[in-house]
């Protein structure tokens, strides 16, 4: 081994691991990414899509921190769609289908370019712990690698079990070994563990699908990229197709339920309600005669197709017969059967807001190991954990992720204060400040903080500044131009035509007014480019709501700013109920804000904590 001492070690080369390693090295930390198989870095082990609702927001936030997922996905994107295009900018989510191979190659290419990053192949056998602190890892071959902090992103590899019908096999995903030894080590820390399950559908051979009989779903005419750096697709664009399950398929599934791992009682973990297996769908929604199935090509030069919507743990022969009962799939060949996977996760309430284990300093966790699901959720945690670990080792101010300013903040706060009962996935409805946490302004929310932390390179920083200048200029121009109300009313704005003229910004705030209408009236506005115009319209639309949200955000920030000492002795606070005391002792909230979100917290309890917080500050 050439390098045996690093600032940061990242264990695992999945979506969390690559972002953690990349951001730490961007910040200037010498980083080692240790993976069992370097060739599998950047593999998309589930469906070949990135982004979506809530998820697209996360990717934009990763990108705003100069992360990899958005850029890599854009390079691999073969079908782009902006979801909720017509439902208001705050809930629009960019999504794309990716060519698996392009994605994997591009990810590996980008990682290889990072100067301070070494990729090391090997199995982490144990963690090195010195006076309580994690200071490195031991590999199975006996090599010891030291570091200031370790980020674990081992996904479903902890006691992972695959289920094909009644058949079970240990492993993280098809073709990989589960790391049970590391799992044992982690269990010895005495953390609360939980068990989850998830499933994946069979992969089909696209050449055996009768595409001509299926409804095709093309991408958007006006594709929206995931990264702020890109403005058009790089790969050839394709369509997906849609087929449906039917009564015959449901009948086959019902007749074979006993053979399903999920339904025969072989699986103990809880699965996600938003991604049920086809067995679950047929049982729970028995009245539905049909469920839609999206046929998503996995790439441009492969025939493999991912049938989204029919994840299953039925035996192969049953899978084959119900799939072949569907339109267009009558003669389909299964390349790889669907399966269910069960795995351990660590109760994320054991983590602090840096995603560091409270009881094991120096050890950070990110991704599925924390009970989440999804590439985007994993990548976002990787960014947060990698940045926090690097900041700690380099002795810099960490980036602070708050519910008021990012989906990353919402996710981390949900995880560490509420824990997980099913694989955690992001939805826009989880963000109470949804109107201000838009995909279009992720850079405005995070890039500056990223620059301060040292993870934004000069190229992105100058692009960002140019964008901010354009917005600023557009805003000033709009503010300086007056629009007669009669003029606006004539074009369909609902307002009293006798009122005083409105500034461009005031006019844009009206639902019926769009930028084009103003441009019609006043052509000096053509100085504002279309992208900037769209964003100015969003900001004007939400201005009134944002003021209210700002007030709420202010009170949250105030409560987040009231810190509770990590070593606060709750038994010395008189008047706290035993129940609250034990909850506080196990959670050790960092702030009054965090304490307030603990279930069962009372107003009186918070007051006592505020007293304690003040005393500690004095």
């Amino acid at each position, binding site marked *: 081994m050439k390098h045996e001492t690093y600032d940061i070690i990242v264990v695992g080369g999945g979506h969390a691991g690559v972002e953690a390693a990349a951001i730490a090295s961007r910040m200037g930390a010498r980083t080692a990414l240790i993976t069992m198989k370097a060739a599998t870095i950047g593999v998309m082990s589930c469906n070949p899509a990135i982004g979506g609702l809530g998820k697209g927001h996360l990717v934009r936030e990763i990108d705003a921190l100069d992360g990899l997922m958005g850029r890599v996905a854009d390079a691999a994107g073969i079908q782009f769609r902006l979801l909720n295009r017509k439902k208001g900018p705050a809930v629009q989510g960019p999504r794309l289908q990716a060519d698996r191979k392009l994605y994997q190659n591009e990810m590996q290419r980008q990682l290889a370019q990072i100067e301070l990053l070494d990729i090391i192949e090997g199995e982490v056998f144990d963690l090195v712990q010195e006076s309580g602190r994690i200071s490195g890892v031991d590999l199975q071959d006996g090599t010891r690698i030291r570091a200031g902090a370790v980020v674990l992103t081992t996904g479903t590899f902890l006691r992972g079990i695959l289920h094909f019908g009644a058949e079970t096999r240990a492993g993280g995903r098809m073709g990989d070994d589960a790391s049970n030894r590391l799992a044992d080590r982690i269990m010895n820390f005495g953390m609360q563990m939980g068990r989850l399950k998830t499933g994946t559908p069979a992969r089909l051979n696209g050449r055996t699908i009768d595409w001509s009989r299926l409804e095709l779903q093309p991408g958007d005419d006006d594709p929206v990229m995931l990264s702020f750096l890109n403005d058009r697709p790089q790969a050839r664009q394709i369509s997906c197709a849609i087929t449906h399950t039917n009564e015959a398929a449901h009948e086959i599934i019902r007749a074979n339920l006993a053979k399903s791992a999920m339904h025969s009682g072989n699986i103990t973990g809880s699965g996600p309600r938003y991604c049920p297996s086809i067995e679950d769908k047929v049982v729970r929604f028995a009245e539905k005669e049909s469920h839609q199935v999206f046929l998503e090509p996995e790439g441009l030069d492969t025939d493999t197709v991912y049938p989204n919507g029919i994840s299953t743990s039925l035996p192969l022969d049953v899978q084959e017969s119900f799939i072949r009962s569907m339109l267009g799939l009558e003669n389909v060949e299964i390349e790889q059967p669907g399966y269910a996977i069960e795995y351990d996760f660590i109760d994320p309430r054991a983590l602090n807001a840096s995603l560091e284990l409270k009881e094991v300093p120096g050890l950070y966790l990110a991704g599925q190991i924390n009970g989440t699901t999804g590439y985007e959720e994993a990548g976002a945690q990787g960014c947060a954990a990698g940045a926090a670990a690097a900041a700690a080792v380099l002795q810099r101010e960490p980036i602070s992720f708050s519910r008021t300013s990012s989906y990353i903040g919402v996710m981390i706060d949900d995880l560490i204060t509420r824990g997980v009962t099913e694989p955690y996935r992001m939805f826009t409805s989880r963000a109470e400040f949804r109107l201000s946490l838009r995909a279009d302004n992720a850079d405005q929310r995070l890039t500056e903080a990223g620059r301060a932390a040292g993870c934004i390179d000069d190229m992105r920083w100058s692009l960002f500044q140019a964008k901010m200048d354009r917005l600023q200029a557009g805003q000033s121009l709009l503010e300086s131009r007056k629009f007669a109300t009669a003029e606006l009313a004539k074009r369909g704005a609902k307002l009293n035509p006798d009122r005083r003229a409105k500034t461009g910004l005031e006019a844009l705030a009206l639902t019926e007014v769009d930028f084009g209408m103003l441009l019609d009236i006043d052509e000096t506005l053509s100085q504002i480019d279309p992208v900037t115009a769209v964003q100015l319209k969003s900001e004007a639309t939400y201005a009134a709501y944002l003021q209210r949200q700002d007030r709420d955000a202010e009170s949250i920030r105030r409560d987040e700013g009231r810190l509770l000492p990590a070593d606060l002795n709750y038994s010395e606070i008189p008047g706290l109920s035993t129940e609250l005391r034990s909850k506080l002792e196990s959670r050790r909230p960092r702030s009054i804000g965090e304490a307030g979100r603990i279930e069962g917290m009372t107003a009186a309890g918070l007051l006592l904590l505020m007293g304690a917080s*003040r005393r500690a500050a004095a």
Partner: protein
Amino acid sequence: MDTIYALATARGRAGVAVIRISGPMAHAAAERLTGPLPEHGRGLRLVRDAAGEVLDEALVLTFAEGRSFTGARVVELHLHGSRAVIDVVLKELADAPELRMAQAGEFTRQALESGRLDLSQVEGLADLVDAETEAQRRQAMRVMAGGLGQKADLWKRDLLRAMALLEAVIDFADEDVPVDVTPEVTATLRRCQQAMQTEMDGVSAAERIRDGFEVAIIGAPNMGKSTLLNHLAGREAAIISDVPGTTRDVIEVRMDLKGLPVTLLDTAGLRESTDAVEAIGIARARQRAKDADVRVHLVLPEDFSQTAQGPNDIVRVGRSDRYDIDIEGVSGLTGEGVDRLLTEISERLAARTLGAGVAIRERHREALSAGIDHLDRCLALVSGMSETLDLAAEELRLAVRALDTLVGRVDVEDILGEIFSSFCIGK
């Protein structure tokens, strides 16, 4: 910091009622009612509503920032302790955009935040808030048993359903969810909003049942008002003399009238007066009479037919022992006609209690009113499911948040739970 207000003295009848306003906008908000106030000082002010009508005369204390109990700028309105006055002033304050009603213990919390309390005071406060919370819980239990709980449950179910529909369309756009949920959302929210409106309309009647009714005895000077009151009260509550204008203030007697708590008010003889003190008494009498639930007019026989008779007015010839006529009269001196008068009063009051809803707190009324407003805006935004769906969902969230004292907190997990149980998500 928000500017908050609340009645600081115990609710119910007392000589003086104190309404406290605390926060950066305290002076500005109070000045709408009282006119200019000193930054730190005290003075006597007429309290007027937005239309300029005098509500009461109050001693007003103002405290500059850093020199008050809460540490913030504070205004205290020391009003006459009548329910009518308190209610009308509280309603005025509720309409002020810069104010919101204080939550339990919030003044003290402000004091804590601005560093005005030491630790032992904080602990004392926690006890107090605990006790208050416990009192509220018990109060809520009583209300729940009385039916608000059931109604609130229905509202919650409706609101949750509507939220789930909107959020499903937003968060699961790519999935097997209905494309247009407008009809169901609209119908659900309208139903819910209507039920809330009905409830809110009943709030004042319900408050009456809790706080008691007011019955004012009014009429020209020397019509025997005080004699009648003393007869009913069985003691000399009002000073009676033959000099007109003896009763210079509002005199009140609480009694139980056929099971209803009633406060009888003897008002100063209504006439123009040059005596400044009496003039204030008269103004107050007019106000109280206007606000009373039932007004008993004592008149001369010749005025009987001309006296206005609204649903809350009862007209009697006063001092009927002096006349021998066939018009309904009442005499406090002989007791003539008293039973019939009491029966009629109780019948009128009983009729008013029929509309009583179960929402009984001013706080409930505020919550309902805010909730209804947000639902209005949500309904307007949702029609057509246009490009403002995110704003419609936001208004619905705000409505639910405004109502959370009534329906309990609605968590995002509740909404997701409703979505996942209604729709087959997972394409």
